[in-house]
């Protein structure tokens, strides 16, 4: 079966700096691919290009059989995007946010109602689903945000550090939700700085450094190639302690 997401030779420059410099990757259905890299490695820029928020200077992105450059709206309909710094409308309730996005995705009212109710239950949002998002805690907000990204049941999930700034319990809740999506046959691409999450969740891992993929493979292969016992050591070995751009 063809991969759900295919990216070939993505390049993005900001002024003279190439933030992403020729990244290619694939993610297939039922697979979680982790994107690891130090700050400034180009993870967020890559994910934004894959989600159709940024236009690459070079390279192509295909979601399913749709080229994101040719038919951006169709491609966006097939993916759900979530990032750690994505927020919700403070003066709308979770249910209103879900209804709003459901309509933007062109879903029927009945479908929106049914899925919202199910997501509220699954993500245990019953007690706060009718409160303005501005009053929610970080963990509650991120759950509401996940519901927003899952609502249209996309075949591909692109998650940019989804557990950042969350406590252990909330983070674990979200990790389990991602796992649930994988088990439901979705393709998931996510970035994180938490190595244990990557070890626990990822079927494959891409190591990004200075805008390029410097290593790629299943966890075992990565560890074997580096000769390290865990992902953190392997990461430090490949990227080096001075690997920060900032």
């Amino acid at each position, binding site marked *: 079966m063809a991969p759900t997401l295919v990216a070939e030779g993505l390049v993005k420059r*900001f002024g003279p700096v190439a933030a992403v410099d020729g990244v290619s990757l694939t993610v297939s259905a039922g697979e979680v691919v982790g994107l690891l890299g130090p700050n400034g490695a180009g993870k967020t820029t890559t994910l*934004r290009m894959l*989600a*159709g*928020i*940024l*236009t690459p200077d070079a390279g192509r992105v295909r979601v399913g059989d749709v080229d994101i450059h040719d038919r*951006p*709206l*169709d491609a*966006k*309909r097939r*993916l759900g*995007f979530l*990032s750690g*710094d*994505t*927020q*919700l*409308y*403070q*003066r*709308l309730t979770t249910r*209103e946010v879900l209804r*709003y*996005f459901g*309509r*933007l*995705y*062109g879903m029927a009212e009945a479908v929106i109602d049914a899925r919202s109710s199910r997501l509220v239950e699954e993500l245990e949002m019953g007690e706060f689903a009718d409160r*303005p998002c501005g009053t929610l805690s970080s963990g509650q907000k991120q759950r509401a*945000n996940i519901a*927003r990204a899952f609502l249209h049941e996309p075949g591909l999930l692109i998650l940019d550090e989804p557990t950042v700034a969350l406590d252990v319990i909330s983070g674990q809740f979200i990790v389990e939700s991602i796992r649930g999506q994988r088990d439901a046959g979705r393709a998931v691409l996510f970035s994180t700085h938490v190595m244990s999450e990557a070890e626990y969740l990822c079927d494959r891992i891409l190591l990004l450094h200075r805008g390029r993929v410097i290593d790629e493979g299943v966890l075992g292969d990565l560890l074997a190639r580096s000769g390290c016992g865990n992902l953190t050591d392997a990461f430090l070995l490949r990227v080096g302690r001075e690997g920060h751009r900032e």
Partner: protein
Amino acid sequence: MRSAVVLEIFRKELTETLRDRRTLTMMIALPVLLYPLLMIGFSKLQVSQREATEERTSRIALWGAAPAALREALTRGGRVVIDDASPPPEAVRRGLARGTLTRPAAGPRDAAGGSRPGEPAARERDADSREPDHPVLDAARAAVTQRRVDAVLVLWPDVGPAIADAGVGSVSIYFDSVREDSLEAQSRLERSLDAYRDRLVAERERALGLKPGFARGLDVWATNVAAEARQSGQLLGLFLPFLLVTMSLLGGFYPAIDLTAGEKERGTMQTLLCAPVSPVEIVTGKYFAVWVTSLIAALANIVSLGVTVMRILPVSSISLSLPTLALAFAMLLPVTLFITAVFLAVAAFAKDFKDGQNFLTPVYMLLAMPAGVTMLRGIELNAWTAFVPVVNIALLIKALLISEAAPDLIFLALLSSTAYAAMAVMLAARVFGREQVMLGGRESLRSLLGFERRKGEEPTPAFALTAFGLVLVLTFYGSLLLKSAGTIATLLVTEYGFFLGPTLLLVAGFGFAWKRTLALRRPPLPGLVAAVLIGSSAWAVAAGLLIRVLPPPESLVRALEQLLLLDGAPAPLWLVWLVIAITPALCEEMFFRGFVLSGLRRLGLWPAVLVCALLFGLAHSSVYRLLPTFVIGLLLSWLVWKTGSIWTGVVAHALNNGIAATLVYDKTLAAAVGAGSQAYLGWKPTLVAVVVLAAGLVILRLAPPAENG
């Protein structure tokens, strides 16, 4: 663009905006409180001030020897008290007593037009009339400005002899026009002195056995003919337009920041950008949400004002009719459309709310504050101000309040406002299309405004519309500036300098494809025949049919005829054709049917032709000429579209103008074809023209399509 998505974004943005207390305060609470407080407070203050001034007795100093009758006349009624405790300085007292101090000769201003000593009404009403400095003036100034007295009345040494001897004496009132009390004292003194003089004259007439009124000759009465509504309109017109404009704009201020920079700050912009919606849909939805907020603010202002004036105000000194209020609201529509777009476009660059405030405050000041010129008397809506954004609408509202808005000026003000609004909306759409801007990055102005060369392309619709807006403003102010240069020079410079020049510069500067953009192709023969038929009949259809819909006023007809004859200067017919027919045909066709039409091409045949014709009509800057020029624009646009050659448009345009000018030029010829002095062309020649036009259109329709590519 999908309307359902736009509507959804609009609905959500409006919901959120209306849940924001800050916006609600600005939008509703402020105006609801502002007008009653302002107007009641203002009128209360004014009334009580007035009453207090009238209540008070005026304390005056009387310098010089005063006859008892005069003293008695001044203090009769008890409103004026002579304060003998404020004597003049010793030198002045002595000078007046000895007759060494006399009223100084008038200064230059007096000699020019004011009163002269010796005239019966030698009074200094005008506070600006300057006496040269002299001891009496200095002493009086000190007494009045230090508030020892409200005014100083000086009886010059010639008063005593004059009264005794039936001569003329002079009296001066020294007052301070800045002090309300002093002004009141001055007017009381004048009234008393007038009465005293009248009595004096009457006594003299009696003594000489003359008829009463012999020495007066004329009684002059001045009556204000301005209706009450006009008077109060003038008063309201001074501050109301400014207030309405600034308050309506304020209504959109916070939402514009909140929906752009605020979204970025809260991290929700990215959420929206990953949904399957296009930037144009986002900006449109947001645009309407901010616009509606502005409108609600405008409405709240108008309603609050109306209720205040009609129901609450204690004195009925100010009146406002419902239609006036409704019209004022309608005038706010284009200005809010414009400002909303500017606000959104600018606020989109801000990273967060604070940044947004920093960006928008100067923009707001820059756009709204000029509307303050309405507070100056004498600044009115005219051909110049009708094109100044925001100010034109403020002045239009002012003109409406005194029921003095000419249709053509309303048209110009609304036209230019709409043009500015359209340009601003396009700018906003462009900003929202820039992912860098939307995600909080930087973007060069050059790439934002699309100042990149587009080698070998044709202009886009947005580019063509922007060019139209710029050319419109350029021609408008340009031709006003040139007015003194004479008709021929004005027409030539306007056409070559403001239509053809910019067209060629734009094509060359941006590297557009010359041939395709300006339709520079050899015309096909059937197209040329159609052009001749259309060009020779279109004027008659306009003069015989179209102007019956909205007959132009006589003055405009005369002005146009004057123009067609090159201002009545004895010019040969070939010159008339060159200036009136060939030049506009060439220059205007290059711009409208060349540049603009090729820019609109991707909209499809009829939208492009309709918009191009509408712009052509609008560019003639007169509501009366709109329909005829629009129809002629339709014909010319279709002609060029169908033949793919600008030259068919040039031929038809030149014939149309040339024939119309020739008929004005040659009255006998005009009479021969039935286009004599009556207002409209007769039915018979009109019918012939319709047939010729129809023939031209049929030939054009049957002609093979041009290769538009």
